[in-house]
């Protein structure tokens, strides 16, 4: 019930707002804040009630929708999705509040779209039914399209249609794959189904030849969303043209829908194909890390720079996922959260300066540290978090993904990890240059002088402080969050591990291991690698959890 409450509160508030006349902008602003805030508070209950020692889906509900096709309103959370749900409900109030000062045109529509967007994104992370997942996945497009198209910058029309067509082109093939999967389940005795938990048991049995196509159909859709090189080109445009809150949501949450999909669907449904394509996707991820960083270095527009840095950061996440080690997946999950926090904060800060100066060109700034000391402090925190300074959140995620990529026996070379690590240095280069140009040196434009430009207001500081708290928290005590997703990550990796030992991959992997002595597993402090015997045992438990036992908590009886 808490799960459904979290999901439907934003929609309910949006419904209420539709009934209130458009003239009352203040009411709409308040309602949006209350709605997103309420969703966050309710979702905290999810956090506290979540049993992190259990890898199975929890808070599961199952109401029939189209029983003849076994399509249902199935929702549930595991360790990974609970983190992402919390991230969503946490970012949304921030995004809503950050628009108070900057959005004055058609406020009613603006906040309604924002709440519908939250509804869609939560649905994506909560769905345990492929059909339902697809509906939410596409539903997210519409509000974002309007947010960019109506309240965006100069080239908003181009950016919004590009965003829409890219995403839709990818996801329609996923639709074909979803139907194919259901039909496959039907022709193998079980009857047509879109129930993810049933499909998770079926997926690995599909012949590799078909599985590869399914993998590619899903992966294309998710890779466009992440975005992985070379289908990333929509992102800089969409980010740059979107209104501040739109960028925060895009970077903070929407991109994670792609990486989440890669874990939930590609890795879990098609483990053999994931092994098959791990190298190719890792190459693309590494290219993304380096290429994104190089492009970020040459940007003169601050927002575009941050946008390209997203491409690089998400490369780490993708690499971590396809290392298919517990460390890598764990690192990917925590890095998703990190990126949401630190890049979201960077976009907020860029938005604040844009509201004041109506420019985002780096050359228009300089010396801001003297005239806006508070702003400079927050900017420094965001930059350091993004660079991956130990003690702040970015370090934890990048470190774990790199460890994962380095120790992974599924990737054919450790060069992925080595090259990716160089991306950390690049990040330091472009972000520190950015910071230096904006905040140090002489004040070149008189508008930037102390007194002429206002430092952050109380509301703005209030919006930023929660972000800083979590940035530091994850940096200092990552285990609070890592332990939540640990069992689920282990379960995902477990399935892959088991299959990598039992199929034709065994030979391939052995060959790699003998040919490549570097990639022996290195023990690591937070994530001790279990003894081989324990792995087997874990996997069988995991298998049982995935296949047989219906999750224990909150099964809705009235839905049956």
């Amino acid at each position, binding site marked *: 019930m808490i799960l459904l409450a979290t999901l439907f509160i934003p929609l309910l508030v949006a419904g209420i707002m539709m009934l209130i006349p458009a003239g009352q902008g203040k009411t709409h602003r308040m309602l949006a804040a209350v709605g997103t805030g309420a969703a966050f508070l309710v979702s905290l209950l999810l956090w506290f009630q979540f049993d992190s020692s259990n890898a199975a889906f929890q808070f599961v509900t199952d109401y029939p929708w*189209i029983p003849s096709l076994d399509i249902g309103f199935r929702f549930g959370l595991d360790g990974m999705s609970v983190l992402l749900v919390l991230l969503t409900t946490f970012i949304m109030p921030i995004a809503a509040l950050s628009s108070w000062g900057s959005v004055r045109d058609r406020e009613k529509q603006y906040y309604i779209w924002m709440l519908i967007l939250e509804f869609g994104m939560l649905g994506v992370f909560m769905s345990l039914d492929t*059909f339902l997942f697809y509906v939410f996945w596409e539903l997210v497009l*519409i509000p974002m399209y309007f947010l960019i198209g109506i309240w965006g910058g100069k080239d908003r029309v181009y950016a919004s249609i590009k965003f829409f067509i890219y995403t839709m082109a990818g996801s329609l093939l996923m639709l074909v794959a979803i139907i194919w999967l259901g039909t496959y389940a039907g022709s193998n005795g079980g009857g*047509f189904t879109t129930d993810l938990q049933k499909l998770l048991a079926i997926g690995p049995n599909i012949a590799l030849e078909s599985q590869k196509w399914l993998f590619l159909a899903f992966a294309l859709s998710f890779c466009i969303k992440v975005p992985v090189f070379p289908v990333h080109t929509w992102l800089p445009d969409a980010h740059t043209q979107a209104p501040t809150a739109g960028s925060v949501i895009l970077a903070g949450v929407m991109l994670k829908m792609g990486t989440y999909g890669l874990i939930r669907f590609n890795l879990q449904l098609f483990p053999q194909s994931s092994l098959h394509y791990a190298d190719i996707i890792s190459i693309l991820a590494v290219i993304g890390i380096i290429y994104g960083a190089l492009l970020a270095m040459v940007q003169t527009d601050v927002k575009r720079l941050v946008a390209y840095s997203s491409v690089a950061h998400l490369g780490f996440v993708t690499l971590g996922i396809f290392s298919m080690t517990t460390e890598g997946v764990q690192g990917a999950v925590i890095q998703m959260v990190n990126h949401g926090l630190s890049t979201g904060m960077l976009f907020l800060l860029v938005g604040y300066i844009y509201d004041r100066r109506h420019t985002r060109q780096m050359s228009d700034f300089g010396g801001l540290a003297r005239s806006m000391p508070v702003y400079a402090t927050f900017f420094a925190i965001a930059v350091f978090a993004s660079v991956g300074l130990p003690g702040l959140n970015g370090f934890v995620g990048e470190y774990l993904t790199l460890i994962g990529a380095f120790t992974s026996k599924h990737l054919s070379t450790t060069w992925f990890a080595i090259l990716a690590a160089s991306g950390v240095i690049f990040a330091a280069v472009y972000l520190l240059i950015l910071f230096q140009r904006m905040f140090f040196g002489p004040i070149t434009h008189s508008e930037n002088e102390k007194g002429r430009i206002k430092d952050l207001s109380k509301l703005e500081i209030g919006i930023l402080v929660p972000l800083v708290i979590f940035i530091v928290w994850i940096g200092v005590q990552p285990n609070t969050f890592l332990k939540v997703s640990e069992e689920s990550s282990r379960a995902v990796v477990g399935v892959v591990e088991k299959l990598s030992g039992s199929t034709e991959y065994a030979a391939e992997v052995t060959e790699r291991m003998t040919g490549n002595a570097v990639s022996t597993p290195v023990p690591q402090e937070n994530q001790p690698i279990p003894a081989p015997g324990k792995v087997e045992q874990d996997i069988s438990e995991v298998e049982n959890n995935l296949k047989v036992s219906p999750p224990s908590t909150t099964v809705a009886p009235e839905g049956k």
Partner: protein
Amino acid sequence: MSETDFLAIAPITTVAAFSLIAMLVDAVVKKNTTVMQALSIIGLLAGIGVAVWTLPQDVSGFNGLVKGGGMSNLFDILFCAAGILTVLLAKEYLERLGGAFDEFYTLLLMSTSGAMLMAHSTNFITLFVGLELMSVCFYILAGFMRRQLRSNEAAVKYFLLGAFASGFLLYGMALIYGATTSTGADGILSGMSYTTIVANAAGTTMPLLFWAGVALMVVGLAFKVAAFPFHQWAPDVYEGAPTVVTGFMSTAGKAAAFSAFIIFINTIYSSGVEGIDRLQMVLAILAVGSMFIGNVTAIAQSNVKRMLAYSSVAHAGYMLIGLATGGADGSFGILYYLIAYLFMQIGAFAIVGILEKEEGRNLTFDDYKGLGKRRPGLAMMMAIFMFSLTGIPPFAGFFGKYQLFKAAIGADMTWLAICGVVASVISVWFYLGLVISMFFRDSEEREGTEPPLSGLSTAALAIAILGTLVIGFLPQVIYNLL
């Protein structure tokens, strides 16, 4: 006339009777549009009521001339619903643009009963009578704005090409009859019945004559559904005809042709005659051609009505997927898509009609600029119809496409589903182009120059929006009815 005969045609008789009553009332009560409207709505509602009532009775009547119950009755409901929406929209439109003649309602009811007869037909004769009854009414309705050149042109074009198509259809029927029936056995009427044809064709290798007949019938019916390459008439007729009529023609007319198409094609499939796979391939090619040609040509249009016309060709293509796959899944997919299509297409044409001005002005993409600011409610509804036509959840169009693609994949024709999704991506361009015009671009026009919506139009739009929003949650209801 036995009880089953009556049950089989009960919905048709109801609407046909009301059309005759309407004609008489129109002669007696001069120039009273309200009475005519009320009468048509009552008649169509009665048609829906009777169709619902006789729905569970799967019967065949008049020695195999017609059938009733199940899918046929669902089609009846669909035609009547389209009729009701059109009646609600017609008055305001016709009065404003100079075509307020009350014969409109009689013709509408007659064409509806013709469409219903097609959905019930299991015999070539009834199929043809239904088709002609519907088409002749459509020819007149297309030229209803008789003082407008465009409307006249549309009517003449539609009539000439439609007559040709009917010729093809008839010739096809004759050839099939010749190939399957030995003369003198049991009279012409029953010889033209689908059951006789199936019985004679079952499991055999039919001569070329038979396939020539099938091909000609496919041409005739493909013309009526406006499928590639027989779609050339559609844009001109759709553009020239009064917008309310276009909405009706492009939904009920298309649906009627599909209802007959489904019965005919599935009859051939079920006969197990040699060469079905080739027929499937031909239909698949028609589907792919319609989807791509329709959508690609629609991109180039600057007139919204023409854009919707070309895209309706593409929608015929999506539905042809269901014919190519055949079987219960395919038929259900078509029916479900048509229901979704009914609401979104009539809704879209309703808004086009509301915004249209004299002599076909105010119809281009440029004229829609800034609509999101001037009339936010109307623009938002139009946006919903556009998203639905594109096939984006949670709107009706997506669920329709899902059923069709599912049918294709279930029949091992995954490539057809892939063509379908690629075509859908192409359609994003022009459907969202309209949304862009409405919301993302501003016009110089002053705000508040538009007249308010009439109550009837509001009701029609409300029904259309409601349908577009909730259809996705109803498939199980329709499953259970079949």
